[in-house]
Each structure stands twice: as C-alpha cells, then as structure tokens.
C-alpha cells in the first residue's frame, strides 16, 4: 500500500519538474513548483506513517508554511514582472544570458 503512495508522490514530483522545464508562462511554472512541494509533502507523510513517527508530519506542516510565504512573495514578483514587461513569457526574461 505504502508503495502506491510513494509512487504517486514521485509521479506528482516528476510532473512538477516537467512543468517547470517545458512551460513558458510564469504562472504555470509557479504552479508546477507548488505541485513539487506537495509531492514532497505526500512523501513525508507517507514515510511518517511507515515509521510511526511524528517527524514527517512536522516537516510537512513546515513545508506548507514555507510554501505559503513563498507564494506571497512569488506572486508579488510575478506582478512586478508583468508591470515591467507587460507579458509573462519566461523567454523574455533572459538577462542572465552570458
């Protein structure tokens, strides 16, 4: 049974990675990152259940708190990006090009 939970977690995580890599809209990239965080949470909770320990639950709650803070920050950044260029295509923002 545990294996299924873990497989789902890995699947969700890979979907998130794929989303970050393949999508060009900043919002979708952001949502993919959230997906990866939740996949990790699922993993934590699963393993906590497996080991009958509270550590995983604590970590999952921590990740949620961090994700909330991160969401607030990231959305502000997204708004600024939109103000700056009027567009949310990640390919426009390539200032780091060497």
């Amino acid at each position, binding site marked *: 049974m545990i294996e299924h939970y873990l497989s789902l977690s890995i699947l969700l995580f890979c979907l998130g990675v794929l989303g970050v890599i393949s999508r060009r809209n900043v919002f979708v990239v952001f949502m993919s990152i959230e997906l990866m965080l939740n996949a990790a949470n699922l993993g934590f909770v699963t393993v906590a259940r497996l080991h009958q320990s509270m550590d995983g639950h604590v970590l999952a709650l921590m990740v949620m708190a961090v994700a909330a803070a991160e969401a607030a920050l990231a959305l502000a950044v997204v708004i600024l990006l939109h103000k700056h260029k009027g567009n949310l295509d990640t390919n426009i923002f390539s200032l*780091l090009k060497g």
Partner: protein
Amino acid sequence: MEGNLSTLGYIPLLPLAGALVLGLMHLATCRGRRISERIYALVGCIGPILSFLLAVNVFFALQALPAQSRFLSHQAFTWFSVGELTVSMGFLADPLSVLMLLFVTFVGSLIHVYSIGYMAGDPAFGKFFSYLNLFLGSMLILVLGDGPLVMFVGWEGVGLCSYLLISYYSEDRGNVVAGNKAFIVNRIGDFGFVLGMAFLFWGIGAEGFDYLSLKANAHLLAPTLGITVCLLLFIGATGKSAQIPLYVWLPDAMAGPTPVSALIHAATMVTAGVYMVARFSFLYAQAEVAGLVVAWIGIMTALLGAIFGMFQNDIKKILAYSTVSQLGYMFAGVGVAAYSAGIFHVFTHAFFKALLFLGAGSVILALHHRQDIWQMGGLKNKLPITYWTMLVGALALAGCPPFAGFFSKDEILYSALAGGHTGIWAIGVLVAGMTAYYSFRLIFVVFHGQPRDREAYDHAHESPKVMTLPLIVLAVGALFAGFLNLPAIFGGHLQVSHWLAPSLTEVHPHGSIATEVLAIGGSVLAFVIGISIAYRRFATGGEQPVFTGFRKFAHHKFYVDELYDTVLVRPYRFLGQAVERVVEPFVTDGPVRAVAWLYRMAGLAFKVIQVGYVRVYAIYMVIGLSVMSLVLSQSLNF
C-alpha cells in the same frame, strides 16, 4: 654605573612636537586665511630653545657625577622585540652626546631665530619652520640614541629632512634635482651603514645592541670582522658627511634656502658621520687599518674640497667646499685616533661655519638673491655687522690664532704628526694654507675694493636685528670656543678632551715640545702665506678671472659630476630602460598576462551554457540533482 634621567626624552620630542604642530597649522591654513608669521616663528623657535635649556640642564647633571660614571640614560618605550633582540627607544647622555647636544641645539636655535628674518614673506613660512624643527629633532635623536638602531632613525630622519629642505623652492627643477641627488647619494651611504650594523649585530649584538654593551663586548669581535664593520660604517659616514667619493651632493645642497645650508653644514647632518665614528671609537681603536683608511680619505677630501673652493665664484659654493674640506680634517682627526680633536673641530666648526653661512645669507638678501661674488664688492660700509662677523668667521675658518678654528685644527694636525702620520700632516698644512687663501679671497672680493654692480650696491642695506643678532652671538662663539680646549703649550688643560675621555677610546699622543711647536708653526706659516697671496691678488679689487688650464679643470670640480654621470648614472638609466622594454613586458608581466588570458578564454568557453532562460537552468538543476543522488545512492550502497 648608570643613572636614569627622564628629561632626556623631551629633548628630541620638543622640536618634533613643534614640527607636528607647525605642519598641522600650515596644512589647516594653506588654502584659507593665513596665520600671522609671528605665531609660526614663536612656535618654531620655542622647541629648539627649550631643548637647548634642557641640554644645559643635562650637562650640569652630568658634571655633578664623577668622571668615570657620567652616563645617564632613559628608556622611553620598547620599540620592537624580535626573537632574542629587544630594542627600546632609549636615550643616552654621556660626555660625547652632551657636547654634541649643546652645540646642535644652540646653533640650531640661533639658525631658527635668523630664519625668522631671512624667510619673512615666504608663502610657506610655516612649512619651512616645520621642516626645520623636524630636522633638528631628527638630529637630536641621532645624537641621543643609545644604540646604533636608534641612531639610524635619526640618521634617516636628517636624510629625509635634507631632501625636503634642499628642494624647498620646488618650482625650480634644478632644486628638485639637487634634493634628489642628496637623497640618493645618502641612500648609497646608508646601505653601507645598514650592512655595517648587520655585521656588528652578527658579531657581538646578541648580548645587547646598545653602545655600552657593544663597548663592553668589543674585544670579542674578530679582527677582520671588526675592520669590515668599521669600513662599512665609514661608507655610511662618507655619504652623510660628504667625503670622497660621495661628497658630490653637498655643494648641490646649496639650492636650499641659506639657513638650511647653515643647518646642514654646521649643526646637523654632516657632523653625523664624524660623531658616528667617534661614537664607535671602541671599534675603530681596534681596527687600525680602518682608521688609516678613514684618515687618508679624510685628508684627501680636505685637499680636494680646498682645491675646488679656491676656484668657485658662487659665495655659497665656496663655503660648501670649505665644509667638505673641513669635514675632511675632522675625519683625518678621528682616523688617526684623535677622536676628541675631531669632535672638537666639529664643535668649533659649527660656530664659524654657521656664522659664515648666515653672513652669506645676509649678503645674498641685501643684494636681492645675487650669489656671484664677482657682482659684489665694497660691501664693507654697507653691511658693517655682517662684515665684521664674517671676518671673525673667516679668521676662525682660516685658522688664525687665537680664533676657534686655529686650536681645533692644530690639535688634529698635531695628533697626526705626533702619531707618526707625517704625510697626513703635510697635506693638512697645505690645506690650511689653501683654506686661508679661499676664505680671504671671499672676504676681499665681497667686502673690499670697489662695488662691481653699482645698482645692487646702492640698494644694499644691513639686515634686520633678528638676523644680525645670531651673527654676533656666533661670532663671539667663533672667537672664544677655541679656548675651551687649550693645549698645555698655551697653559691650558685640554678641557674638552678630558671631558670627552669617558666616552671615547683614545690614547693621547705624547709628542715632544718640538713636535708641538712644529705643528703650530706649520699651521701659522700656512695661514700667513695663504692670506698674503689672497691679499696681494684681491685686496684692492680685481676682476672676474677667466679660468684656463688647471684652474678651469678645478673650477669644473675636476668634472667629477660629469664622470659620475657618464660612468654610473647613464649606464644605470640605460639598464633601467632596458629592463622596462625587455624584462618587464616579457619576463615579469608575461606570465601574469598569460594567466589573465587563460581565465578570459575559460570564461568565453563557459559563456555558451549561460543561455539566460529559466527553464534551461531548471534542467541543469535537475541533471545536477540526479547525478548527485545517483552518486550518493551508489556510495551509501542502497
């Protein structure tokens, strides 16, 4: 037997503090409102004068002690401590350093007072006094230092100050060149001094590196090492005290303001070399060969200086070469182990040479900065005080009995003769005659005869009191200083020599009365001959001579400057250019540039992967993390 005296530290500190205060005052006001010259003058003179009073105090403190224990010292603070060597900023007052101290502060103070008049109206009045104070303070550190290292601090300090003051009128390129020359030539000498110190430390420095410990351990020094140390230290002295072959900077040092020349030639700087040799008399007494070298170089310098002095036309150049010549006498004295005679000549020379320079400054100022003696003449009536005081100075310099120079010079010549150095004595007598000739050539041409430049003559007027007063005081010194060391034949007791005895390692020569009479007779005869030739040629005027043959050769100082320029300076400069063009770009800069190029190329190569798209960076991250996880799982054997 050593006492402690904390006032010693204040003697160099006062002029140094004065220099700092004056310097700050000058810096604070050089752009905006200016401080009155009176305030600068007051601050500038108070340090040296207080130092002089303290020096007198120290003198009496020493005199109260029994003769063999006249050593007072003061350790101000620990300077540095490396391994087994601990050097403290210590000061030592013994008969030798106190004698130096007295005349350095006395003559130095008078020169400060004189400068108030001479430099009046100078735009950087405060800067000048600041340098002057610094100069005096450095000299006092040199004299009072209780070991070679502290002496070296002062030694370098006076070198620096001479550079600053010689090129004081720095708008003129020639003055800056003269300052550079003085500094560089001195550095060459300092190199010898540093090496000498290093050898000395290597030899006997482990037990303590101050004069008293060194003196106690001097007998442990191997003879060859002793001679090496003495010769190396003497190289330092040839730089500082302008002896062959490093004398060339001193005549050029005339570029500075005249009070500076007086300070360099009389009270500070050039006397340092003689003082140093006398200070290390315990070493030189062991190394007779080194002493002979010192004596012969000294007397040859005396001869050379006198020859050059006879054929100069610039009033200050004549005096400059006379200083070179007189310094030669001093080294001849300390070289033949008559240390007290050498130091006594330093002492009397300080009075009459300061007097002559300050008098020359008065003449130069009266004639609006004319220095060529062939534009002067007949100034006797216009500048009476300057004339009479300079006459006293010239008589003292020429060695006319009973002026100061006679006794001190005679003491050196007598010591040379009694010590069996007949050659040195003979040259010394010849130089005495030449000295009489050139000093009276100067007096006659400048003050007697008819005015050669009517317009300058008409505008000439005597200097203000603040300048003539120091002249009068120095003239009194030049008249009577000789009596302090009256030899037995004139009913004296050689008081200065006996006073100096505890500091020096010397054996007084016991010549017969005949030797003494011969020495005195020789000097007096030379003086009379020299002065009569000068009288016959110049007393009633005379025109500027056209130098031909040997005279032209001597007028151009045997072309020594040109020789040094060709043999040393130019090849050195050529070498420098070669290094700049070949060695620097290819040998030293080459590898550095190659490394820089390598980084540049690596940067260009790695630039390709920096595409700037967030997605791509995410891919890099995923790849990286995957590889890391893989490696981690491998190593942990999952």
